[in-house]
């Protein structure tokens, strides 16, 4: 690990000031991603700004919805009674990720800003445009079984690894941030970006901005939802493909439906056209299959991850069925019903 200055921030203002003043400064919260990357020399911050003592550790009611402070841990969110009853898809997605220990340390802000698990990104000895812009992409034509099938560029094919963010995308949450020029709100759909020509930028957050909270909308789709995660082992593994699906039904007719995919793109992946195809239709396998076909018709497989296209298609159908039936995927009994 490289040597760094350490600043313990007592207020948001202090934190923002300390970030702006430090060379290559980084906020640190749970540390579960940043400390790991520092041990691999992938992150070499000149300064760490410890934000764990900021008063951003509460889940609050705001305008009939919940606002989750950036420092609330993943465990606290997942087991919060209000989240469990009103936004169960969020609770479920968080519990599908990492482990008990990691979720106890991981924070809401840190989860949003966690970096890709691309092997080349982690390995200093290989080219990676995200780690070292201009050095090339080792994954294109390399070992890319876990990589993206949507929204890639010729510079980077990495995925965003978060489970929580996939649920937040389906819920259409907003991220409230603060910087030197005040506060602003970023819709989930715009928070993470596609790699394009600047794969080193994961998000639209500026380097001197801090995440204050994740604000949920009033509608939490408690009746019809699921988080279905498919991976190489049943726990403690990142998603190869995951789907967060939420729905509102009028009898057997779909009133509203949204779904986001994880493990397949540089950001939680949604397809407005496919979601639109569900509205007003009967909640049947045929309806879901048509929407899933539309999504995967845009997929572009890499040399080793062609299996993800069919996996994504089937996962979408299954997740929409689970949501419609009101039988969300259990995160402890791993059989997929």
């Amino acid at each position, binding site marked *: 690990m490289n040597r760094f200055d350490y600043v313990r921030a007592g207020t948001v203002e202090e934190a923002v000031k300390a970030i702006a003043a430090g060379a290559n400064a980084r906020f640190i919260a749970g540390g579960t991603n940043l400390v790991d990357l520092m041990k691999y020399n992938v992150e070499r911050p000149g300064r760490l700004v410890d934000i764990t003592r900021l008063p951003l550790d509460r889940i609050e009611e705001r305008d009939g919805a919940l606002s989750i402070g950036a420092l609330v841990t993943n465990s606290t969110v997942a087991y919060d009674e209000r989240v469990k009853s009103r936004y169960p898809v969020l609770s479920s997605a968080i519990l599908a990720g990492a482990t008990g*220990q990691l979720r106890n340390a991981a924070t809401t802000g840190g989860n949003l800003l966690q970096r890709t698990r691309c092997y080349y990104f982690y390995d200093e000895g290989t080219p990676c445009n995200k780690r070292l812009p201009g050095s090339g992409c080792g994954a294109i034509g390399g070992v890319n079984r876990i990589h993206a099938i949507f929204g890639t560029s010729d510079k980077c094919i990495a995925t965003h690894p978060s489970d929580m963010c996939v649920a937040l995308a389906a819920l259409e949450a907003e991220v409230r941030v603060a910087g030197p020029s005040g506060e602003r709100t970023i819709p989930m759909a715009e928070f993470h970006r596609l790699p394009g020509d600047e794969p080193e930028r994961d998000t639209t957050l500026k380097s001197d901005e801090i995440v204050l909270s994740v604000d949920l909308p009033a509608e939490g789709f408690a009746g019809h939802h699921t988080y279905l995660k498919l991976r190489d082992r049943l726990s403690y593994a990142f998603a190869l493909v995951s789907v967060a699906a939420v729905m509102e039904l009028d009898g057997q007719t779909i009133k509203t439906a949204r779904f986001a995919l994880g493990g397949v793109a540089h950001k939680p992946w949604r397809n407005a056209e496919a979601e639109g195809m569900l509205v007003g239709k009967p909640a049947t396998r045929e309806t879901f299959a048509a929407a899933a076909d539309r999504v995967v018709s845009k997929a572009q497989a890499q040399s080793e991850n062609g299996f993800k296209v069919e996996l994504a298609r089937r996962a979408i159908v299954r997740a929409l069925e689970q949501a419609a039936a009101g039988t969300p995927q259990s995160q402890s009994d791993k059989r997929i019903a």
Partner: protein
Amino acid sequence: MLIESGSPVAADTRVEISLTINGEARTLQVAPWTTLLDLLRERLDLTGTKKGCDHGQCGACTVLVNGTRLNSCLALAVMKDGAEITTVEGLARMGGGNGLHPLQEAFVEHDAFQCGYCTPGQLCSAAGMLAEGHARTRDEIREAMSGNICRCGAYTNIVDAIEDVMQSGAQG
């Protein structure tokens, strides 16, 4: 040097932190990049806590911080200033009795290990998991304990041991 909110501590400065470790209050001078795991093992000679992967991938380094189970390899000691730490060396004390913690007894009873390398992490993780109180069934125990890898594959007996303690309610 003492930490003051908002003022940077320059790299290579040692900072003063206080920790209560297994019931004993300690004041320590640490470099900001020292992980809690390295502090425990290298400085304090509390080698019960193991380093398996050093990257959050195995759970061998699990300790309780203010009663919550965490991977000590990914925690910077300086950030835990003021916290109460329990390691496997302090579990017996936490159990209240003079002998072993009920989980330790159950691990012996059920042969819940082979080489024993993962065991301190399993024990601290299980203690934290029982305190969390979310797991009820075997499936749920397995899932809640998935952050602790056992390369000897003693999983069945580990779950048996934890289930036993859970059912007896003697979680210390």
